[in-house]
Structures are given as structure tokens and as C-alpha cells.
């Protein structure tokens, strides 16, 4: 039994906003003072700031595309090598770090759970294997649907929604997923038929389906199945000037059903002005504010070298002309989806990049309900996750933000409303967008809060005049009640879990899938499915199954 005494606690899920209080940990859980029999250890946290462990709802940490990114970014790996010691494994890379390093760096930043947003069904085994080698963190993944031939055929044949629901549920179970993501609905498939763009109402020339035709039944399926996290949508026209209209149309297409629109910064571009590129953060934020069914993550960009990795081959191929260094990979995968990896360097003196930076911050600051806004850089696409403390400072400190604004491309700074926005995030709001809100959206009832019965994933910060320093180097991090980071360094390797849901499905769907696999897929249905025993065997990961509604 551990007593964390006298810290200043920010626990938005329980309405706690900077209250001085004691926390009690027993068997890896937070318990009430009344449940305490004997305190073995008291840790004095007076003057410290206490939050639940950080939760990243959208970070590319597991799967083939990350490893292609590592392979392409050889210079970064040569330049950043970390050795092993008695406790820690070795690794390399600062942009798409190797798996062990990813786990350590997240933990050292106070994060305790991370979710891979784009797990291709046929690549699920690799995603889980990599995440099992990512220590310190609970993990989970959203399975990628909406460009898979099987589903597109069901939709083309106008099959009953019940069948779609069964297929979606079966896929979630077979790949051990926590949710479902759709990327450029039908567009990755269209690229394989040599279509180079696909608007929301433009038809895939083989199936005759539009992205809207794909989006709607998937939204319906997730809602009906009661999967806590709504459909995670990477809309069409990513990065295309003027795409904000597509984004608004996509939001409207949800027709009030729950939907999560991801890395919305990349989808909030207008085409005003001499350079035909402008911020449309205001109409997007206004739409987010108005549509209570909607949540977003921002996908903030930061200046510097990174690598973009996405299933959206159609737009990654288009973006390859901007590759820096000039090497890039695109892959068509198993009539299911694809992957495109393009190294990228965001420059603060470049008009477009500087405005992208402004647009992300505008979205953070113009949306008024932090419970529906999650902090992400779409790691590593906008920037590596290690830039979060800097991003938090930009959100919390207007004068710092305006100082940086004064250094970027002046035309971009002038074209943005950012300088006039007065809002500063509070610690409470930061705790919402990095902890409480992601946990609630994912249906993780025991994470993201510090109430009785919660898993004791806790981050303790030493206040600092520089808020970036505070968030970059927590004093303590507890994982399941075990202290695993002390003074900003990993001090123990805790046990972790994989979070999944198992929505109900009619087992009959497997008969049609078996027939399809036998004819068309390049592997057996039985070998496609990942059993609980197999997953738990990867690294003694326990499986945590969350309830559907």
C-alpha cells in the first residue's frame, strides 16, 4: 500500500481541478482512504502536480509502415543510438524510434497508454508483435477497414447492414482491435485502379462506390455494435488545398452519428490568397463546436525533420514530390489497403509549413470543448511524439506562442488569426486533452482518471517556470501502482496490457469469409485470426477486453 501524500491533483474525469489531496494505491489500483489497512510507503508530493498517466489516442507505433519509415530514415538511426544497461534494452532513432526506445521515451514523458490507429488486418500480427516489444505502455489498435475488397463488394452488392455489422465485428475480433479506422474511404483501392484523386462523392471506378457510400455503413456498424470508440476517420483529400469543404461534408455525412475525425489539421486547408493556400481552421472549429457527435485529434505539425507514414497511398504518392530527403516508399497491400512513407521536413520559413503550424494551433484554440479534442501530432507525421511538451507550452503560454509566431514565415503569420487568439489552456484542460478525454472516447473505464478503482497509472510533475520542462521530465510515473520512472528516467519495467473489444457477431459470417479466403486471399482464414493465447504469448501481455455498449 502506497500513499501519495499532498499532491495537487488534476483529475478532470472526477471534476478535480488542482485540489491538494492524498491518493492511495493498493494492488495496482487507486483505493479510498477507508480501504487502507496499512500504509507501507508514503511519498510526499507536496508542491507537486499529479495527473493520470498520459494517453495517446493516435500514434503510429506498431506495424509495417513504421518499420519502413525506420528503414528509410537510416541517417536518423545512425545519429541517435541508445545503449542497453542492466534494465533497459538498446535502440536507435529520434523520429520513428525503435520499439524499446519508443516505450521508454513515452514513459519518461508521463505517458502510460498509446494506441496505434492504422492496423491493417493482414498486418495485425506484426503490429501486435511490435507493440509487445514496446515496453512501459498499454497498447491497442484500430483495425483499418473501408478499402478492403470484401467490404467494398458487400457494399457494391448493397448487402444488408446486418452483414456489414457482422463483418466489422468479426474483423475487430480476429485482429484483436479496440476500434476501427477508415482511411480515404475507398480511395486507397481506387489508387490501385490508377485513380489519382477521389472526392467524397466521386466514384471508385471499379466498385462504383463513393467515399460517402463507404463511410456511412461503417459509422452505422460501429454505432450499432456499441464499440465505445466511434469510427476513426481519416477523410479524403488529405493535405489538398481547399479540402476543408470535404471535411465539412464528411462531418455532415455522419448525420449525427458518433464520429472521430483524425489529424484534422491536415484537413483544414482553404485556397484563398495569392498562394491558393489558407487557413480554414475557423469553419472547421465552428463545425466541431456545433456537432456534439464529433471528436477530433489535431495532428499538429512541428518544424524540423520527420517522416510521414500513412495507409493513404493515393495522397502519399501525390506528396512524394515534397519528400525530404528525396526517397519514399509506396506499397499496395493484399486488396485490403496500402502504405506510403514519405520523409518530410517542415520549415518555419516556408509559407505552407508555417501556416500548417498555425492552423493546428488555431484548431486547438478555437474549439471550445476540450472533451472532444485530443492532443496529437499524428506521430510521426506532424512531428515525433517527443515534441508534446513543447506543444503543451504553445497551448498554455500565449506570450511564448506569439514569440514563436514572430519567427515564422511572416506572410503565413500575417495570414493567420493565431496572434489575436488570447486563449491559454489551463493544466486542467491539458489533463482533459491528454488523459481524461481520450480514455472516455476509447471506453477505457479504468484509465485516464484517479478515482477509486482506477488503474494506478499516475504521473507526478515538479512545477517549473518553464512548463515545457515540467511536462518533458516528470518526477515520477507509476504504472499499475509501480513506480517505473523516477526523475525523468525509467527505473522499472512494469507489466502492461493490450486493450481490445469483442463485439458480438453472427458466427455465420465466417462461412462466407472462409469461401472468400480460400479463393482470393493469400493466406488461410485460420492463420489470419490471432488467438488470445497467441497474443498473450508475444510478451506476457495480458489482454483487457472492454465492454461494448
Amino acid at each position, binding site marked *: 500500500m502506497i500513499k501519495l501524500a499532498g499532491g495537487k491533483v488534476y483529475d478532470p474525469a472526477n471534476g478535480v481541478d488542482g485540489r491538494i489531496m492524498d491518493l492511495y494505491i493498493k494492488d495496482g489500483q487507486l483505493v479510498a482512504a477507508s480501504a487502507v489497512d496499512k500504509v507501507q510507503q508514503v511519498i510526499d508530493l507536496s508542491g507537486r502536480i499529479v495527473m493520470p498517466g498520459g494517453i495517446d489516442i493516435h500514434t503510429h507505433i506498431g506495424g509495417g509502415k513504421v518499420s519502413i519509415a525506420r528503414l528509410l530514415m537510416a541517417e536518423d538511426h545512425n545519429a541517435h543510438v541508445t545503449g542497453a544497461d542492466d534494465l533497459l534494452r538498446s535502440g536507435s532513432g529520434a523520429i520513428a524510434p*525503435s520499439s524499446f526506445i519508443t516505450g521508454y521515451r513515452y514513459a519518461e514523458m508521463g505517458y502510460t497508454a498509446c494506441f496505434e490507429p492504422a492496423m491493417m488486418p493482414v498486418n495485425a500480427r*506484426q503490429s501486435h*508483435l511490435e507493440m509487445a516489444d514496446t515496453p512501459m505502455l498499454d497498447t491497442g489498435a484500430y483495425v483499418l477497414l473501408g478499402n478492403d475488397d470484401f467490404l467494398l463488394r458487400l457494399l457494391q452488392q448493397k448487402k444488408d447492414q446486418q452483414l456489414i455489422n457482422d463483418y466489422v465485428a468479426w474483423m475487430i475480433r480476429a485482429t484483436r482491435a479496440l476500434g476501427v479506422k477508415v482511411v480515404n474511404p475507398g480511395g486507397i483501392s481506387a489508387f490501385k485502379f*490508377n485513380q489519382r484523386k477521389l472526392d467524397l462523392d466521386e466514384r471508385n471506378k471499379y466498385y462504383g462506390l463513393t467515399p460517402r457510400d463507404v463511410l456511412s455503413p461503417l459509422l452505422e456498424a460501429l454505432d450499432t455494435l456499441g464499440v465505445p470508440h466511434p469510427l476513426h476517420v481519416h477523410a479524403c483529400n488529405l493535405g489538398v488545398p481547399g479540402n476543408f469543404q470535404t471535411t465539412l461534408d464528411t462531418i455532415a455525412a455522419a448525420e449525427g452519428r458518433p464520429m472521430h475525425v483524425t489529424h484534422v489539421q491536415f484537413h483544414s486547408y482553404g485556397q484563398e490568397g495569392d498562394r491558393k493556400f489558407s487557413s480554414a481552421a475557423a469553419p472547421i472549429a465552428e463545425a466541431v463546436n456545433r456537432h456534439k457527435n464529433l471528436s477530433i485529434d489535431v495532428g499538429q505539425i512541428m518544424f524540423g525533420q520527420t517522416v510521414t507514414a500513412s495507409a493513404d497511398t493515393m495522397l502519399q504518392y501525390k506528396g512524394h514530390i515534397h519528400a525530404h530527403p528525396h526517397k519514399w516508399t509506396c506499397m499496395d497491400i493484399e486488396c485490403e489497403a496500402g502504405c506510403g512513407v514519405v520523409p518530410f521536413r517542415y520549415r518555419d520559413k516556408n509559407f505552407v509549413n508555417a501556416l500548417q503550424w498555425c492552423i493546428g494551433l488555431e484548431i486547438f484554440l478555437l474549439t471550445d470543448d476540450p472533451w472532444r479534442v485530443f492532443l496529437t501530432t499524428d506521430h510521426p507525421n506532424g512531428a515525433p511524439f517527443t515534441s508534446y511538451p513543447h506543444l503543451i507550452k504553445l497551448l498554455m503560454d500565449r506570450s511564448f506562442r506569439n514569440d514563436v509566431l514572430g519567427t515564422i514565415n511572416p506572410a503565413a503569420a500575417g495570414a493567420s488569426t493565431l496572434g489575436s487568439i488570447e486563449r491559454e489552456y489551463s493544466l486542467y484542460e491539458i489533463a482533459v486533452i491528454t488523459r481524461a478525454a481520450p480514455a472516455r472516447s476509447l471506453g477505457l473505464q479504468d484509465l485516464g482518471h484517479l478515482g477509486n478503482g482506477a488503474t494506478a497509472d499516475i504521473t507526478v510533475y515538479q512545477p517549473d517556470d518553464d512548463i515545457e520542462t515540467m511536462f518533458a521530465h516528470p518526477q515520477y510515473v507509476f504504472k499499475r501502482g509501480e513506480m517505473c520512472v523516477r526523475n525523468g528516467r525509467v527505473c522499472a519495467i512494469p507489466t502492461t496490457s493490450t486493450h481490445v473489444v469483442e463485439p458480438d457477431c453472427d458466427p455465420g459470417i465466417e462461412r462466407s469469409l472462409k469461401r472468400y479466403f480460400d479463393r482470393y486471399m493469400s493466406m488461410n482464414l485460420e492463420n489470419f485470426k490471432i488467438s488470445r493465447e497467441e497474443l498473450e504469448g508475444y510478451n506476457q501481455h495480458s489482454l483487457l477486453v472492454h465492454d461494448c455498449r
Partner: protein
Amino acid sequence: MTATVTCPFCSLLCDDLSVRASGSGLTVSANACQRARQGFGLPAPATEARIAGVVAPLERAVTRAAQLLQKSRKALLGGLGTDVNGLRAALRLAERTDAALWHEQEPYARQNLKALQSRGGIMTTLGEVKNRADTVLFIGNNVTDNHPRFIERCINPAHALFAGKHRKLGYLGKPGRTELADCEGHELVTLTDQGNGLANHLALLRAALTQPQWLAAAELPAPKRNKLKQLVDMVGNAQYGALVWSPAALPQDQADLIIHACLDLLRDLNVKQRFAGLSLGGNNGGVSWQSVATWQTGFPAGVNFTNGRPSANGVQAADADCLLWVSGFNRQPPPALAVPTIILSPHQAGASAADVYLPTGVPGIDHGGNLFRTDGVIALPLQKLRDRGAPSAAEVIEQIVERL
């Protein structure tokens, strides 16, 4: 047993085999190829460990192996013919002993990596070729030799979603005899069957495809011009094409250049149409090695450790002062080095001359696990098909690590 057995003996990882016990080995009763027959047919693993050729208890042999590795300053963990878990364990051991790692297929894999790390690629997978590729160009001699069911599964499938029964095939290089027989019924154009001058022929094809005016004006013998013209038409008419090569089947002194040229050609073609590459290689756990090494260390090949720090500097086998050789899939003996040698293998090739021999099972026969397929995207589960008590390489390596 049902026909869902995964074959670990090449990186196609066909998982539609039926296998039954027969004598001391196993017999493939459905969907066999030459490699599968041979691999499954090998005798069951040895059961006795050896120290300096003499039978010894496993415990003592493991301890001896740990002593040798601990004493070494530049150990080499070689061969690495094992599954994902075996490779994870090998990386842990290397990190603890400052060792280098070297997969037997790495010289070929590096030919791909050199090109991919400097250019990137436009690539595809087995399922895409099977269902979508109406046009396939093979680059090299006997491209599918080490992947015997590629033509059967990807060019001649009973069912395909988009591509028709009859495909258009082009060859730059010499088709293998069985390849030619298997490709009957498809339109086939062979630009050269000489097997050499591949890089030149690829350059000719690229010029002809990207600069039609060059082909019209070029001084070429009529037969070559005609074939080039046929290939240009074939490629130009493709709805979805694939370029297939195998690094091991290319002339090694030019392999990286040829692969580079393939990647450049793919970039050119994709400006207007869809065409993607597929590399056949990485048998004996080679693709798995590249995958695991990349996610665990950030480096896809040539991994070695100094003071626990990984680098991709590689190591010369001749510089090693201790060799741990892992050969789970075949009877390949270790290279003859005048240094202490530890063998982990089901088979006793070289065992009597080794300092330590540790018997292990065959991944996918004696124990389960995972292997990655040639396209690098799909990991397939392996099955345990018999129980002779043979441990996995991962288990044995972990025991060594515990004794360090």
C-alpha cells in the same frame, strides 16, 4: 491434420499444406513442392547435446556456451535460421555479449536494402499480384527457383478478383525450365535469355518505355527491336503490373544496380499507370530477421553491438572470436572458422567438430511461432506438428542469457 499447415521452408510461407508422420520425418500429402518435401522429410531433431563432440547433459552444454560467449569480445551470432522468437532472443543475447548478428540471407537482402534505403520503392504483395497483376515482368535468371510455388499461386491461381486467366509475362533473363512449363498459356516475351547483360537490357527497356522516339531511332537488331516493342506495348497496356526479382538470382556484382534500375523504372511507370515491385527472397527466416532487427534496433541488417549499443556497421566473419550458429531449417553447417563454435540446430551437421552442440527443434514442426513472408507485410503463425521434446532456439538462447 487439416490443410492449414504453414510451410517454413521458403518465404512464400504457403499455409495450405497437409502433413503426416512418416518414418522419422514428415510427409507432405497436399500442396507439396520440392523444398517442402525436403524440409519436412528431414529426420527428427537430435536429442542429445554435445560438448567437444561428446554427449553431455543439456544444462552443462548451455553453461559451456554461455562461458564461451562471455569470454569472447567479438562474438558472431550467425545463420539465424529461426523464427521471430528465436530472433528476438538472439538480439537479446547479442546485446548482452556485445556480439554481431548475421543472417545467412543477408548478403542478398543487402542488395535490396542498398537500393531501397537510397531510393525507396513502389512495392506490392503476393495477394495483389495474384488478384490484380495482368502483366508481370520477371527480372533475372530462374527468378522463382527458391520460391517454387510462386507461379502456381500468383500467376496461375484458380480464382482471381481482377486479373483474367491469361496474363502477359515478360522475361529479362533466363526463365527456369519449370517456370517456362508453368507459364504455358500466358503470352510470354523474353527480351534476353542470356542471363548476363541484365542491367543493359533493363536500361534498354526503360529507355524504350519512357522515350518512344528513342526506340524508333535506335540502332538495334530487328529481333531485339521487335521484342522491345512487344514489351513496351505489354507494359503500356497493363491495368496493373508487377516487376518481380529475386536478389539471390541476380548476378551479385550488379544486383544492387539492377534493383536500383527496377525501382527507377517503377517510379517512371507510376507517373501514368500502376506498376509495383515484388522481391522474392529472405528464406530461412531472412525476412523475419530484417523485420525484427528493424523494429527492435532501428537497423535492418549488419547489426552489431559495442557496449550494448547497436549499429549497422556489420562485421566480417573472419574477425569473430566466437561463433554461435543457428540453423533451424536446413543442414547448413557453420562456416569453418578457427574459433570456438556453438551450434543450435535440429541437425548434427558440423556438430562433432563444434565446441558445443545444442539440439533445437524445427520452427513450424517441433514448435509454433511466427515467420514473415517475402513481401514483408504478413507474419504467419507456425504450427507444432510433433512432440519430440525438442526446445525452440528461443528457449535455448534464453537459457544461455540466464547464465551470463
